[in-house]
């Protein structure tokens, strides 16, 4: 079965510093998509970044970037210049044609 594992239930970062959230997944598929979603206390899920498995180049969205290691089935999220508004639950997700899985989430705290 396809699974998504986020091994860090909680992470903390100082404002303006950089933090990396880990995600690994297990799949036998060759074609899939990976996502990071952010869920602030308002509980609205917001897409942060996505990565197509067939692309070797790591996706980047402003302060957010990923380190996609396909052979290792790893998909970590790096947040640079952390801001107070980045505090939220972050979910890693995996998508194929017939399946969608989410990790259990990492709670990120940003310290002023």
């Amino acid at each position, binding site marked *: 079965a396809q699974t998504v594992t986020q091994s860090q239930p909680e992470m903390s970062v100082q404002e303006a510093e950089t933090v990396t959230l880990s995600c690994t997944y297990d799949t036998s598929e060759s*074609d*899939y*998509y990976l*996502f990071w*979603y952010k869920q602030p206390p*308002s*509980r*609205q*899920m*917001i*897409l942060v970044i*996505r990565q*197509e498995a067939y692309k070797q180049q790591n996706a980047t969205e402003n302060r957010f970037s990923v380190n996609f290691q396909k052979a290792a089935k790893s998909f970590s999220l790096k947040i640079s210049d952390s801001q107070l508004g980045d505090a939220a639950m972050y*979910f890693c*997700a995996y*998508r*194929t*044609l*017939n399946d*969608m*899985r*989410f*990790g*259990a*989430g990492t709670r990120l705290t940003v310290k002023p």
Partner: protein
Amino acid sequence: GAGVSQSPSNKVTEKGKDVELRCDPISGHTALYWYRQSLGQGLEFLIYFQGNSAPDKSGLPSDRFSAERTGGSVSTLTIQRTQQEDSAVYLCASSLWVAGGTDTQYFGPGTRLTVL
């Protein structure tokens, strides 16, 4: 433009009652998903609609749960004879399906269900 909306935002019910949760997807989105998020947990997939195809019900936890999508747009998730373990936030998402699984899901704000 308008995002995914869900109603009600909060629902408190008594054990054994039936509840209906509504989801209005983004206009034009062909795919619609329901998830359940228990307190402090990740998202549990419940059901998926794609166009006029039969829904993928593989995630529904019991036969007390059902969902329909009328006219390919609005969806209703129904929970019959609610139990306390049904208490959770129910999230709906929609996407503009593209062949090959390239959809990005956009989520609604969720309905927080509390079963007393």
